[in-house]
């Protein structure tokens, strides 16, 4: 098998497990919606504030959902010593990284679609420039999945991984929160030109951490 085939094998396995366990559909997605609802309760009755801060709230909800998805992606490897099975498989570290990050990205897309509907309905937000909105979302999703997978394997073998992962991950993804929120703000306001620099920043972040992840995931897996 080549790199892509190996990555698809790992991603298929992770997505099949998620489909069976329904953790994404019954826990992560409802969690994201609950976060949006709580923001709505907290900032009501001034709906003008809600629509202005909607991009930031959306991406904070996505970040929190990312933490759950990443934690879950590595919890399934910790059960029954499956991580040893992955190490013994001889699968390429880059393929493992791409597979696990890819599966996380698919789950994040599902979360983002649901939350987009949520901000439109709950926060009364109209989606303006679709192209920068979609590209910013794709780049941010790839970046979040890549950096999340990288820090997920870093904390995978630790007893304190559930509490350590957010502490490690959230500061690193601050540029994604900033860039994606600004790009969404500009796109929603119909100022697509202002969105592109942020889309570019998100793209650089995604490429950078995908590259780093492919290089170091294998060695990190050995130490986890």
């Amino acid at each position, binding site marked *: *098998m080549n790199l892509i085939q*190996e990555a698809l*094998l*790992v991603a298929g*396995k992770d997505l*099949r*497990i998620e489909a*069976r*366990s329904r953790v994404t559909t019954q826990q992560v997605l409802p969690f994201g919606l609950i976060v949006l609802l709580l923001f709505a309760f907290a900032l009501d009755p001034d709906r003008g504030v809600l629509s202005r801060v909607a991009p930031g709230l959306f991406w904070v909800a996505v970040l929190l959902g990312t933490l759950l998805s990443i934690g879950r992606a590595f919890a*399934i490897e910790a*059960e*029954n*010593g*499956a991580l*040893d*099975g*992955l*190490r*013994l*498989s*001889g*699968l390429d570290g880059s393929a493992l990284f791409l597979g696990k990050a890819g599966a996380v990205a698919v789950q994040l897309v599902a979360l983002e679609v649901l939350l987009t509907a949520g901000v439109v309905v709950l926060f009364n937000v109209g989606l303006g420039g679709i192209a920068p909105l979609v590209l910013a979302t794709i780049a941010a999703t790839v970046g979040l999945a890549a950096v999340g997978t990288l820090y997920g394997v870093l904390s995978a073998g630790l007893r304190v991984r559930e509490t350590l992962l957010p502490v490690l991950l959230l500061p690193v993804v601050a540029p994604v929160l900033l860039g994606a929120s600004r790009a969404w703000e500009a796109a929603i306001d119909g100022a697509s030109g202002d969105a592109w620099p942020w889309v570019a920043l998100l793209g650089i972040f995604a490429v950078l951490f995908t590259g780093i992840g492919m290089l170091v995931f294998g060695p990190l897996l*050995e130490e986890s």
Partner: protein
Amino acid sequence: MQPVVRLRSAVCLLGRFPALAGVDLDVRDREVVLLSGGNGAGKTTLLRLLAGLVPLRAGTGEVLGHDLATDRRGHRRLVSLVGHETACYDDLTVHENVRFAARASGVDAPPEPVLEQLGLQPLAAVPHRRLSAGQRRRLAFAVALARRPRLLLLDEPHAGLDAEGRAALDQVLSGTAQSGLTVVLASHELDRVRGLASREVVLTAGQAHGSVPEPASVPDPEAAATDSRPPARATGERSSG
């Protein structure tokens, strides 16, 4: 012939504790070597060292021609380890777990023959989480065999198995010479396993005894393949049986 395993003064640390403190071990092609010794003697660490899952801190080691000191990943596709856990996924079925492990190891053959061999075919569609402890153990063996290893490492292989499972496992072990497998297994069930092993190595406080046999004392695997069980015994400090 080059041994499948060759360790000299091998040292492995668990934290700062030397779990293996200078082990010498030779294992030849198609041998079934029993590791015995008390709790904490280093049996599990030795198996994990041979699988490339723990680093060699001192000494030299080769498994299937790969130097453990410089590359402990190169031989992993050729090695299967059945440890205390199944290394399977709760939400995948028996069939899916075996299929994934095989494909991840580059084996495209369907898993049905291995499932049949271990009596798991009726459970093929059952998720791992719904299996009993003994059935999970059998699944772990199925996963290990489906990867078509050259070296099979077993840690307490009979633990948790019912009579049918034990018989299936014994059949696998007694057919190693024909199947081209070399087996190193750690067990406390010495009476049962000595009858299946060609040689016994005793581990005490991270050191091995009887681990490097005299050339003449190792049974010819081809001859062993044609013999009925129990096999010819070896050698080392303590003969099995």
